[in-house]
């Protein structure tokens, strides 16, 4: 059951990810990206990380992508015009892609030689309680640093918006 669900949603994620690049209209690409986010959330859920799954849907699919769609709609961006591809891209594109994937496989196997298959249900620390505890004990410093970073980003946004008002 777990494996079947994993295969279904992994396939959806990959197809949607492929679709993001292939589609010519920005809205279609954005919707494919939502599909990727949604199926990733299901994969998290299958692995027992329910808090992460909910956060994935709320933050990525529900907030960031809505903003993307909003901006695309606001700018009323039309379909992308296809121009002829460069000769270099036509010849080297697919071989380079495979070379890159092979390289990645090689590095993963060499850097984590002890890695084994993921067992569904083997991970039991995905609840909100566990995530919260980890954030405020083990990962307190990174957590605080990230919050300061976001604060800087917010201030930057305010400053930029202010300039346009004048």
């Amino acid at each position, binding site marked *: 059951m777990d494996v079947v669900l994993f295969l279904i949603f992994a396939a959806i994620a990959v197809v949607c990810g492929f679709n993001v690049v292939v589609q010519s209209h920005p*809205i279609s690409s954005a*919707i494919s990206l*939502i599909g990727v986010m949604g199926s990733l959330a299901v994969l998290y859920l299958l692995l027992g990380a*329910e*808090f992460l*799954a*909910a*956060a994935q*849907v*709320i933050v990525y*699919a*529900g*907030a960031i992508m*809505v*903003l993307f*769609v*909003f901006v695309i*709609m*606001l700018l*009323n961006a039309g379909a992308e015009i296809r121009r002829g591809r460069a000769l270099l891209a036509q010849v080297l594109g697919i071989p380079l892609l495979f070379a890159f994937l092979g390289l990645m496989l090689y590095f993963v196997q060499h850097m984590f030689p002890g890695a084994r298959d993921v067992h569904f249900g083997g991970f039991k620390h995905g*609840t*909100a309680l566990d995530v919260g505890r980890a954030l405020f004990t083990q990962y307190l410093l990174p957590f605080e640093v990230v919050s300061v970073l976001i604060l800087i980003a917010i201030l930057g946004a305010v400053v930029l918006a202010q300039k346009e008002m004048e």
Partner: protein
Amino acid sequence: MNFFLLSLIKAAVVAFVLLTTLAYLQWVERKVIAHIQVRIGPSRVGPHGLMQPLADVIKLITKEDLIPPYVNKFLYLAAPFFAITMALLSISVIPFGAEIHIFGGDTWMQLADLNIGVLFILAVSSMGVYGIALAGWASNNKYALMGGLRSSAQMISYELPLSMAVAAPLLLANTLSLRQIVQHQEGYYLGFIPHWSVFQTPMPQVFSFFIFLIAAFAETNRIPFDLPEAENELVAGYHTEYSSMKFAAFFMAEYSNMVTVCCMTTTLFLGGWLPLWPAAGGSNFVPAIVFLLAGAIALYHGLNPVRRRDGFTLPVVAVVFFLLAVLFLIPALRGALLPLFWFAAKTGTLLFVFIWIRGTLPRFRYDQLMAFAWKFMFPVAVLNLLVTGLMVALFP
């Protein structure tokens, strides 16, 4: 009893009750608004217009289902489907009542008790925006696009104070499961003040209750925040180009969101299925008394009819109410019916407030709407969350 079979039956019951509520909520809304505006409201189809929802359904199904040219066909067809799916999905984690004994097994009056129940509802409702935004975009119509744009901006903005307002009672309850949130609100101070989140020490959640309610109006696109479909500016907003059942899907999604939000408010702030005062004070007899009184009033007006058919219809209503009252007096059924009554009473009151406000307040202007969200609601919600956190930490 087989778990799957039981879940299937529960899902069927909840779906049936929800869809009937949606249909009749619209009747109630039209009646209430009519009386606020000193009209009678629907009165032709059936006694007191009670068959009106049925007539509306027949009308909507038999209307021509038009797909305008130059729309993005896939998204145009997918948008109403998406909206209604997301709207109906979130009811599945709402706890309607306590544990009951049925078919020789124990079960909760709730479809699924997720340990991320609150987050699940937030996630599903945040996905609901796409239905409206994409409908507006795919219609290839300026008014619809404006409606879609407004709705996505509005829903992103009001989701922040909404989530902040939800977080405060969660600090008190210390869980994300909706069932445990209600269980945590059990009990009374001094024997009569309920232990609900709105009254709970160390920090009564009055502010977050009102912030949640106001943000809920915006999230469900109800007056005074119904900018996405402001009819005197945008024709009908995002659903301008939709007809027949596709229009009905948006309509049902809006009402379904309203029901969910009211259920959510009841669960988070008003103690869910718990009674208003303890059983020692006689709260077990409240439903029976309420239905008896309603029956008596209906009977009185039936015996002194004002309109032609009242002499027949109102006594029938009275008999129905008396039967309901008797049902609540049977001790065997009480365990299951009393929680349901309290839950329905609280949710119904909130739904009435939604309708009442629609009959009372005018629409906001768009800049007022945004300024209100960012400059008032959000700071107050954050402040409330901080103070609640401090109080919980100081007086555990």
